[in-house]
């Protein structure tokens, strides 16, 4: 039998009952669409989360600077040098005491003597680029500049939470805080830190002032890179910061984006994949049932074909191709519905739709396979019929 004849006969058989064929296709459409949507939405959502990593974390590098007996590893002027590297967006050096060495900080106005206004807060020395380096915002006043640093002005900037704790909210009346015995004027409040949020509860002082509290040497360097430059910059940082003793620095780089994506995809999809597979099984049962009904209805057609010289395998092949066609159609429609749905979901959530091409191309094949398997038993029944009985 010419394969083209086989296909033509199968197509004619499927089209002879268009409504039934359409209904039979439905189960496979649902199953395939569910699978494609699950994979597509997961990939799209995964991509979104990686995108957030890109913005917030994937460009943030921290260099820990161990304290050394043989003089400072990294100088206070290092951040200014760093910004000359291509790919560095901002950088700041920070000195902070290790462990629990918070100092008592008191606001100058004791409104209520019974109220305990003294707070134990961390005191941190930082270079003037700190607001950019922590991606924060100076919500009141200003940050100190090189002039303050050079003049060794006794000024501080409070982290937003620190300001709230010591009761400083307005800077108009020139508030001051006492750190230990000495007074320092508060010239700004730093809020909305994008990284190193712990600094929000700290009192931030210029590098020269830090020496008053034992904050002599840089302990940490915060670096922000342009998107995609983190890995490259991380490699260059130690030599740029400390050419002679670069090996002693500890560079903390952002997690790789792929790992983030895998973690997201892993836990999201199990349920929906199972749902899709169940729909596919239901679709297969539907095709099997409809094909079986068709075989029984078309008994006399089977008899006629046998009389015209069709062998058992020709009859079996016809019904197999018919059920495969139904499955294939379901796969194609289901994949299309799935792709449209993924794009629609992405559009509504303003995400970038991401869909691997492999499952979309595999979907019609999967549908065809479902149809083929579903057609096996009905095709066998059709092939087993005796022509004399079928023609009666």
């Amino acid at each position, binding site marked *: 039998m010419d394969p083209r004849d086989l296909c033509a006969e199968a197509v004619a058989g499927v089209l002879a009952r268009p409504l039934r064929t359409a209904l039979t296709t439905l189960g496979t459409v649902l199953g395939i669409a569910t699978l494609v949507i699950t994979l597509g939405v997961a990939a799209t959502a995964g991509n979104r989360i990686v995108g957030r990593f890109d913005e917030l974390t994937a460009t943030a590098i921290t260099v820990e600077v161990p304290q050394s007996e043989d003089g400072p590893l990294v100088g206070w002027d290092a951040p200014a040098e760093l910004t000359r590297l291509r790919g560095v967006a901002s950088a700041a050096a920070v000195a902070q005491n290790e462990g629990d060495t918070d100092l008592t900080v008191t606001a100058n106005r004791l409104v209520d003597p019974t109220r305990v206004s003294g707070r134990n807060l961390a005191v941190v020395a930082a270079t003037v680029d700190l607001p950019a380096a922590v991606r924060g915002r100076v919500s009141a006043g200003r940050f100190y500049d090189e002039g303050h640093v050079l003049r060794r002005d006794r000024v501080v900037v409070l982290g937003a939470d620190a300001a709230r704790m010591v009761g400083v909210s307005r800077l108009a009346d020139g508030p001051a805080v006492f750190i230990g015995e000495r007074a320092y004027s508060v010239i700004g409040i730093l809020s909305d830190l994008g990284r190193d949020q712990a600094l929000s509860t700290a009192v931030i002082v210029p590098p020269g002032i830090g020496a008053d509290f034992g904050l002599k040497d840089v302990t940490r360097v915060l670096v922000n890179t342009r998107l995609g430059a983190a890995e490259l910059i991380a490699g260059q940082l130690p030599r740029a910061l400390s050419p002679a003793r670069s090996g002693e620095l500890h560079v903390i780089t952002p997690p790789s984006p792929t790992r983030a994506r895998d973690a997201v995809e892993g836990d999201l999809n199990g349920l929906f994949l199972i749902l899709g597979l169940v729909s596919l099984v239901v679709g297969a049962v539907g095709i099997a049932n409809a094909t079986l009904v068709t075989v029984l209805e078309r008994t006399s057609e089977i008899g006629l074909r046998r009389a015209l*010289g069709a062998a058992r395998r020709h009859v079996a092949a016809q019904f197999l191709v018919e059920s495969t066609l139904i499955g294939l159609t379901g796969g194609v429609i289901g994949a299309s519905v799935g792709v449209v749905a993924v794009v629609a979901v992405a559009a509504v959530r303003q995400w970038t739709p991401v869909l691997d091409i492999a499952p979309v191309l595999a979907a019609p094949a999967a549908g065809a396979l479902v149809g083929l398997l579903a057609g096996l038993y009905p095709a066998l029944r059709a092939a087993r019929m005796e022509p004399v009985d079928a023609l009666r």
Partner: protein
Amino acid sequence: MAEPGTAEPVIRLVDVDRVFPAEPPVHALRGTSLRVAAGDYVAVNGPSGSGKSTLLNTLGLLDRPTSGRYLLDGIDTTTLPDGERTRLRGGRIGFVFQSFHLLQHRPVLENVMLAEVYRQPPTNLRKGRRARAAQALERVGMGHRADFPPNRLSGGERQRVAVARALLGRPSLLLCDEPTGNLDGHNTTLLLDLFDELREQGLTIVVSTHEDEVSSRAGRRVRIIDGVLREE
């Protein structure tokens, strides 16, 4: 295999029995012997249940005898495997049934073309099949109905289409099982006229019937009663 001095007959049935397993067993054919030469026009006459369909199914290789031998065009079919019998059936035999057996969802022309689909190469070529089917329809006077769906045709017209389908591919034997059973008198006459024409063109025809009008038009009549076949 041919006996000396005579041409090989299309049908040679030797002492054929067909017993259907039942309680008690049904002897549908008993010791049936029959020779049909090329170009013969034979009517098998008998009442309902006498074994006509069983005989024609056997001749058409749709059924196997329980015992005895059946030679078609000199080929002993009783020992052939299923596949070979199917091939012989598709290549050498045309069927016409009482209930037409046309595919309702396919136009007349495609119904006729179906006869070539299961043939062996080179008689199954798609090229020219449409033209050959149209020609077969012309031969039975149905050329003007090629694109009709079968359910828009009268019974007589449907049976002509079925004859056209049986004729496609030039079979050596045309088997018609009560072809006029569903036709009125006028259409019966028209169909019998068509059989006369086909016989004149040299086709071998076996027709089963219980109507005298049909058997009287055949060149030769055999009678079957309770599975026993006799020449008239």
